[in-house]
């Protein structure tokens, strides 16, 4: 098997940067390819892969086909807003892309695969919202994995100017239920001073596919960034999310709602980095587990020296719907500053008999009662998006999932 596929495996073939791309970009891709080859594979002893499933990291069977699609649903945009497929933005706004493209290190374990993404990415979206411009309607991008053993590397780069506002949704899905695919996605969110940036990823790949998603959020002075991840699909998904409070008064919400069932495995790593004083971050990750599914949550709050008056919260809640599920939680804190309020919490539990009994007493069947409670548990994090359109998109995905379990 390996000999036939090896020729065009994503691990073997050097990047082919389109000739119309700027020189800096093709140089960058060549450099990233060299980095990918020299970086070590994650190994068992790595703390950032503790409880993780390293077997999922053999990507040798995947190739860069061309069958997968990207669809854009772009609302009418105010003047000055740039919203283009990444490939076009590289040509028309190369300098702006260059300034912000993948500037932060992947520090949560997937450096090697982030380098692979950097070397191979061709597609995705570039959004730039100038100072004081607000985009009300969400910008939607759909990535549809098509073809057997095809790999895609979608990139999302969002930049907001001073006091600007925008929301972007990335949807990841498969064109059919069977073809195994691989998606290694990276998103860079750069929230400028006083701006409001909301990003939402909805992952509904088929259960033969795998996903790595790496998020880097940089929150400027008095800005408010929200990064939301909904996971209902894929055989295995790894999310790495880093939020850096770079300017004073920065605020970051990191949210996730995941509903694994069957043999699905979700591995989520987060990092709340407070680099400036008077910043706050709030993380809420919720997992509802069915079947023999497994989740890993590992979170760290880092408060730098000098980042006084930080408020940072981190909560991971696991609802275990069946006796065969497994939830691993590693909520962590590293505090190097003074006048800091930090807390983290993690709970794992099942629905209590009293809750079911209460609903049954009102004529609701036990099955429906369990479903209602699970639904309520999952959806309260969705409300934290505080954006009706985005909430609807996520709730629909959740509904689709609950209908199958």
């Amino acid at each position: 098997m390996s000999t036939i596929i090896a020729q065009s495996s994503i691990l073997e073939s050097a990047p082919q940067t389109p000739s119309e791309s700027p020189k800096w970009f093709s140089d960058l891709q060549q450099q990233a390819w060299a980095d990918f080859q020299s970086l070590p594979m994650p190994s068992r002893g790595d703390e950032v892969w503790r409880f993780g499933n390293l077997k999922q990291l053999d990507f040798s069977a995947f190739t860069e086909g061309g069958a997968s699609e990207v669809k854009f649903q772009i609302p009418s945009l105010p003047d000055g807003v740039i919203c283009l497929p990444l490939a076009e933005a590289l040509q028309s706004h190369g300098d702006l892309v260059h300034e912000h493209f993948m500037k932060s290190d992947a520090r949560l374990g997937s450096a090697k695969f982030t380098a692979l993404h950097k070397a191979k990415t061709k597609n995705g979206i570039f959004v730039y919202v100038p100072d004081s411009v607000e985009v009300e309607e969400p910008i939607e991008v759909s990535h549809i994995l098509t073809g057997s053993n095809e790999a895609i590397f979608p990139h999302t780069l969002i930049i907001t100017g001073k006091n600007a506002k925008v929301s972007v949704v990335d949807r990841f899905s498969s064109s059919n239920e069977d073809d195994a695919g691989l998606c290694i996605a990276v998103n860079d969110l750069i929230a400028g001073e006083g701006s409001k940036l909301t990003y939402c990823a909805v992952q509904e790949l088929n259960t033969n596919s795998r996903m790595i998603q790496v998020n880097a959020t940089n929150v400027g002075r008095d800005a408010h960034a929200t990064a939301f991840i909904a996971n209902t699909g894929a055989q295995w998904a790894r999310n790495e999310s880093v939020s850096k409070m770079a300017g004073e008064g920065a605020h970051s919400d990191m949210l996730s709602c995941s509903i694994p069932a069957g043999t699905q495995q979700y591995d989520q790593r987060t990092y709340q980095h407070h680099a400036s004083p008077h910043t706050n971050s709030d993380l809420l990750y919720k997992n509802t587990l069915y079947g023999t599914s497994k989740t890993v949550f590992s979170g760290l709050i880092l408060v730098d020296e000098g980042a006084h008056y930080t408020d940072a919260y981190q909560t991971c809640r696991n609802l275990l719907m069946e006796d065969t599920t497994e939830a691993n939680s590693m909520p962590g804190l590293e505090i190097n500053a003074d006048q800091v309020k930090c807390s983290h919490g993690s709970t794992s539990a099942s629905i209590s008999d009293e809750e079911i009994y209460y609903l049954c007493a009102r004529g609701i069947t036990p099955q429906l009662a369990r479903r209602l409670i699970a639904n309520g548990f999952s959806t309260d994090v969705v409300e934290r998006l505080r954006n009706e359109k985005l909430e609807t998109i996520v709730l629909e995905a959740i509904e689709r999932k609950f209908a199958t379990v």
Partner: protein
Amino acid sequence: MSSDTATVDRETQTAIDIDRSKGDFSFPENHKYDAGVGLTKATVDYISDVKSDPDWVRAFRHKGLDTFLDKPMPTHWATEDLENIDFDKIRYYLSDGQKPKRSWDEVPPEVLETFERLGVPEQERAFLAGVEAQYDSEAAYSNVKEELEKDGVIFVNSTEGLKEHEEVFRPWFGKVIPTGDNKFSALNSAVFSGGSFIYIPKGLKVKHPLQAYFRINSENFGQFERTLIIADEGSEVMYMEGCTAPKFETATLHSAVVELVAMKGAKIQYVTVQNWSSNVFNLVTKRGLAHEDAEVRWIDCNIGSRLTMKYPGVVMKGKRARGEVISIALANSGQHQDTGAKMIHAADDTTSNVVSKSISVGEGRATYRGQVHIPKHLKGCKNNTECDALMINATSKTDTYPAITVRGNQHVTQHEASVSQVSEEMLFYMQQRGISEAAAMSLAVNGFINDLVSEFPMEYSVELKRLIELEMEGSVG
């Protein structure tokens, strides 16, 4: 601001020195047996020869040495400071070749004076059921009240335990903590000496605590005591340990292994007040095995040492077993208290509780590291973990790294952690009422740990509060 901080740190430093003065003295060395510097097969054989170990113990030691040399330093998750331990410069065995005495009158005068100054004989008269006092590698004094001996209580050092009571000792020795558990448990297995062996017979509830006191007197020394406590069905015992060392310029290593076995319905409480001088690397492995309906409680207070890495654990092997860790850590400048708990649920309806409070002062670093493991096919397991950290100065540091694994849906776990400061409002409120700033800080800190201090036996909790007050002196920032 910066000059302020510097003054504060100097004052903090003074506070530490005042406190340490109690244990900071030493006597000239008077050793008949000295295994020399560095660790080789010959060192291990030397110790075995001096102690006239049975063959199985000698083999056990050699296996320990091989495992130790094999295992890497755990610096991929632990602090790099571990690299500063120079295993070739440590002396692994020092003793005067005397058997432990049963009466303080027979103990060599300087050893007696050491323990007198630390208040050990006085405490024994006041409230203890038995005492073992270890001086460098071997126990100098070991005594247990006569009536307990009549009831069948065994309280001896580990060497005597493995020779005189092999039938009780051997089945559990190295079973709760296997040699290969970690690099330092392997090191201890190779060169262990001293520590207690305790056996409490069925149904016996020992009213007064048993105590061990570990004293390091020599420079560049490594102390490797090994303790095994077996509480037979339905028995109860409380064991307390204290420790001090003089403050040397060079690093000293203390690496103990403590194994507890609580048989059906038994209850073991293990109390530690760790007050090593700030040049000691304190790398200790402690674990208890709780059978059906048994309870193992670790009550742990870490004030001293340069680096402490200690995660007392309980393996709940029988139904309805209970495990508990109550932990207080105080990290001052130059100290890293890396403490935590390990709760392994291995039977239905087992419950565990971890309450950890840490205080970081000056440039001190306090770390909580925990593991809770609930495997498949169990039901009714419960864990509660709370860790609270208090930071006194702007330069203080604190970390929390828990790991919780739950398989199956018939369990409840919760983990909570918080980090806070003594607020300016709180201090202001007290100062308004005529309390000095330093006293207000001390009161606030005592309030923070008060509910845990009350878990310690009364004689200890008074001492603890005083110690913490001293450590906090002058650290208002």
